[in-house]
C-alpha cells in the first residue's frame, strides 16, 4: 500500500563535519526526529521547526529549512489547501491545530496609529514625571460619592471597593493546567505576583502548590467544571466563567488523553489517560438568566468576589456583552478570533469569530450608550503582540488586556502549533515529565517579568507622548487614534477617524 502523499514541511540537515556526536539533539527533540546509528540521523517528516535542537547543539551543526520542494503555483489552490485535502483523504478526521489562526486576515491593530503632542500641548517625560498605569478591575459606582473629613479634606468613598488592583493593565490569560505544564503555571504565578498583576488558571483547576499565590490568581469555571470546588473558588481574587474561547468559539474542548497524567488527573478528577471533554455549552447556562444564576451562585459561594465572564468575540457581541453586564458580571473578558488554544479544529480556529479590536470598540460603545459601562471592566485579549497593541486596545475601550501567546513565546515557544501532541520540546505544552523539567519556573518568571516591565515602560512612553499621565485617560479615548488603510465602514464601526483628519 502506498504511504502518505504529503511531503515534509521542513528539512533537517545535520552537518556531519561539525557534529561531534554528543546526542544532545536526540535528548532535546520532543518529537523524536533524531536517531543515532554510527552518526546522527534525522527524520525530517517529524520536524515541527521548534528549534530546540538548533538552540542546544553545541556545534551549530543543525539547520532546519522549509522544504524547498516545488509545487506548481496556483492562485486559488495554495499548498496548504492541497496538503489539508491529502491529510483528510488519508485519515477521515478533523484537522487539529494549536495556537491562534495563522491565516492572513486583516489585522486592525496594524492599521491604527497613535497620536502625539506637538507645540500646542506639551508632551510629558515619563522619566521625570509620575505616570500612572495602575488599573482596577470590577464594577465602579454609578456616581462617585465624596466624603469630607474633619479637616475639610474631600475624598472619594468606596469608588473601587471589591475591585482587583493591577499595577499594570496587562494580565496573563487563562491557559489550563493540562494544556500547559505545571512549570508553566508556576512561572506565570510567580511573575504575576512580582508584577502586581494576575494570572488566570484556565479551566483545568489549580495545583495545590499554587494556592499561596491567591492574591494574584483568577480561577476559572468552565463547562467541564474540572477542579472546581469551594476551596478552589476561593483560591483567587475573582472567578471567571468561561463561556467561550477566541480560538474556538461555540465548541467545547477535548484535552487528549495523552496529556492526562497522574497530577493532571488528580487536579481535574478524571482517570489517567481519558480525554478531558469540556461540553460546548455550560449545561446549566442556556440563557442570560441562567448566566445570572451561575454568576450569583459563584458570588454566594465566594463571599461576593468579582465574577468575570469570558466570551469569544462573535457577530452579535455587543448585545451579548450588554446581557452579561446586566446579568451581574463585574468583568467581561473579550477573546478575539486570533486568540490561542492548546487544541482546536483548524476550520473553527481559522474561520469562526471576529477580530477583538472590532468587538472591543462595539462593546465599549454599546455599554456607554446604555449607560452601564461603569458596571463592568473590559479585558481584551486574542492577538496582543506588543505594548503598541496594548495602548491601541485601551484606546479602543479596554480596561486591561490579556496575554497568553506572548507569555508563552517569552518562555521559549516557537509557535510550532503542535500543543495538542503533548510533545512540546520547550516544556510548555506538555505533561511528559522529562520535558516539563526543562522549563525552570524561576527562569521563566524572570523572562515574563522582563517582558511585562518592558511593555509597561513603553506604555508610559506612549502616554508621555500623548501628553497624558494616567492610563485611565487613554481608556476609550479613540480621538487619539487614527486609521490608515481601513475602509470607511470599519472606521465608522471603530469610531476612529482616518489619518489626516
Amino acid at each position, binding site marked *: 500500500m502506498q504511504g502518505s502523499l504529503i511531503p515534509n514541511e521542513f528539512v533537517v540537515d545535520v552537518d556531519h563535519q561539525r557534529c561531534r556526536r554528543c546526542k544532545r539533539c536526540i535528548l532535546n527533540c520532543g518529537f523524536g526526529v533524531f536517531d543515532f546509528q554510527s552518526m546522527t540521523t534525522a527524520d525530517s517528516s517529524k520536524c515541527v521547526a521548534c528549534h530546540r535542537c538548533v538552540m542546544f547543539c553545541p556545534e551549530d551543526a543543525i539547520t532546519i529549512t522549509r522544504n524547498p520542494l516545488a509545487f506548481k503555483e496556483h492562485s486559488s489552490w495554495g499548498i496548504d489547501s492541497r496538503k489539508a485535502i491529502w491529510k483528510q483523504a488519508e485519515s477521515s478526521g478533523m484537522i*487539529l491545530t494549536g495556537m491562534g489562526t495563522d491565516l492572513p486576515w486583516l489585522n486592525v491593530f496594524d492599521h491604527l496609529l497613535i497620536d502625539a503632542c506637538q507645540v500646542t500641548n506639551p508632551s510629558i517625560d515619563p522619566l521625570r514625571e509620575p505616570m500612572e498605569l495602575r488599573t482596577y478591575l470590577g464594577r465602579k459606582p454609578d456616581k462617585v460619592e465624596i466624603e469630607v473629613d474633619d479637616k475639610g479634606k474631600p475624598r472619594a468613598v468606596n469608588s473601587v471597593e471589591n475591585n482587583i488592583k493591577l499595577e499594570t493593565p496587562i494580565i496573563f490569560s487563562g491557559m489550563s493546567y493540562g494544556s500547559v505544564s505545571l512549570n508553566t503555571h508556576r512561572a506565570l504565578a510567580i511573575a504575576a505576583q512580582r508584577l502586581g498583576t494576575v494570572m488566570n488558571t484556565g479551566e483545568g483547576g489549580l495545583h495545590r502548590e499554587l494556592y499561596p499565590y491567591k492574591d494574584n490568581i483568577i480561577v476559572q469555571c468552565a*463547562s467541564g467544571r474540572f477542579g472546581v*470546588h*469551594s476551596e478552589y473558588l476561593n483560591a483567587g481574587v475573582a472567578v471567571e466563567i468561561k463561556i467561550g474561547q477566541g480560538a474556538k468559539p461555540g465548541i467545547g474542548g477535548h484535552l*487528549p488523553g495523552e496529556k492526562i497524567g497522574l497530577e493532571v488527573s488528580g487536579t481535574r478528577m478524571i*482517570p489517567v489517560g481519558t480525554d478531558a471533554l469540556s*461540553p460546548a455549552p455550560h449545561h446549566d447556562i442556556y440563557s442570560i438568566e441562567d448566566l445570572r444564576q*451561575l454568576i450569583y451562585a459563584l458570588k*454566594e459561594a465566594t463571599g461576593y468576589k468579582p465574577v468575570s465572564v469570558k466570551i469569544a468575540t462573535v457577530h452579535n457581541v455587543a448585545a451579548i456583552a450588554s446581557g452579561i453586564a446586566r446579568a451581574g458580571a463585574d468583568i467581561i473578558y473579550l477573546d478575539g478570533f486570533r486568540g490561542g488554544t492548546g487544541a482546536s479544529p483548524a476550520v473553527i480556529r481559522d474561520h469562526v469569530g471576529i477580530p477583538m479590536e472590532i468587538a472591543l470598540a462595539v462593546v465599549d460603545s454599546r455599554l456607554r450608550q446604555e449607560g452601564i459601562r461603569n458596571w463592568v471592566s473590559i479585558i481584551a485579549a486574542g492577538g496582543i503582540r506588543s505594548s503598541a497593541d496594548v495602548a491601541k486596545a485601551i484606546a479602543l475601550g479596554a480596561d486591561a488586556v490579556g496575554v497568553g501567546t506572548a507569555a508563552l513565546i517569552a518562555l521559549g515557544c516557537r509557535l510550532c502549533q503542535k500543543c495538542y501532541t503533548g510533545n512540546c520540546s520547550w516544556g510548555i505544552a506538555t505533561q511528559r515529565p522529562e520535558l516539563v523539567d526543562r522549563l525552570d519556573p524561576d527562569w521563566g518568571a524572570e523572562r515574563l517579568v522582563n517582558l511585562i516591565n518592558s511593555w509597561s515602560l513603553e506604555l508610559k512612553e506612549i502616554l508621555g507622548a500623548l501628553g497624558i499621565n494616567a492610563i485611565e485617560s487613554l481608556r476609550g479615548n479613540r480621538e487619539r487614534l487614527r486609521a490608515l488603510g481601513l475602509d470607511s465602514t470599519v472606521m465608522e464601526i471603530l469610531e476612529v477617524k482616518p489619518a489626516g483628519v
Partner: protein
Amino acid sequence: MADAAVKKKMEGEAAELDAAGVHYRELNGRVRELIDKGCKEIVLNGVNGQRYIADGIASEVKIVINGVPGNDLGAFMSGPHIIVNDNAQDCVGNTMNAGKIIIKGHAGDVLGYGMRGGKLFVTGDVGYRVGIHMKSYKKQVPVIVAGGRAGDFFGEYMAGGILVLLGMGEGDRPIAGSYLGTGMHGGAIYMRGSVSDSQLGREVRVFDLEEEDRKLVAGLLEEFQADTGIDYSKIKPAEFMKLCPFSHRPYGNMYVY
C-alpha cells in the same frame, strides 16, 4: 431586609429560621452566620424558591428545609447534609464536592452537574440533563439515586460516578428519556427495567450486573430507604441493567494531527 424579618431561634447547636419572604442573600447570610457560630443543625421553615442555599459551604452542618428551595441548592458545597421535605427546583448539587442532599419529592433539571462527590437522593422524578459530566477520583465517587423517572440527556458526558434510577411511580412513560449517556466516558448508570436502543447515546452499551454491581446497588438501596423512610424492599438488584461507556476516549479518532 430588616433583622426582624428573619425570626430565628438558636438553642445550643440547633437553630430554626423563618425564611418566609426573606431574600436569598439575607437568608444565606444568616445560615452562614449560624454555621460560623458553631451551629450543627439548622431548620429553615417557609422556604419558597430562595436560591443558592448552602452554596459553597464547607462544613458538615445539617440543614432541614421545609418548603421548596430555589435553584442551585447546595452548589459547590463540600460537606453539608441537607434534607428537603418537599420538591426542589433546578441545578441541585451543581458541581457539589461532598455531603448529602435528600429530596423528599420531585426535583428539576440539571441536577448534579459536574458533581465531584457526595450523594443526592430524590424520591420522585428528576428532569432533563441530570448527572451531566459527573466525575470521580479514587475514593471520591459521586452518587445520584432517583426513585422515579428521568428526562433526556441522563448522564451525558459522564466521566465518573454512579447514577441509579428506580423508575417508581404512576404512569407508563419510559424510565428515562433519549440521549442516555451521550458522550459518556466513565462511571456507571444503573436502571431498573429496560430502555430501547434508540434511547441510548452512541457511546454507551447495556451490560448485565456483576456480583460487585449487585452489592453496590443493594447497599445504595438500603441507604436510600433509610434516608427517605420509604419501603423499597420489593425492589431487587436483579431487576437492574447497567449502562457503561465502551471507550474512555469516545472522540479519540475524530482528529487528524
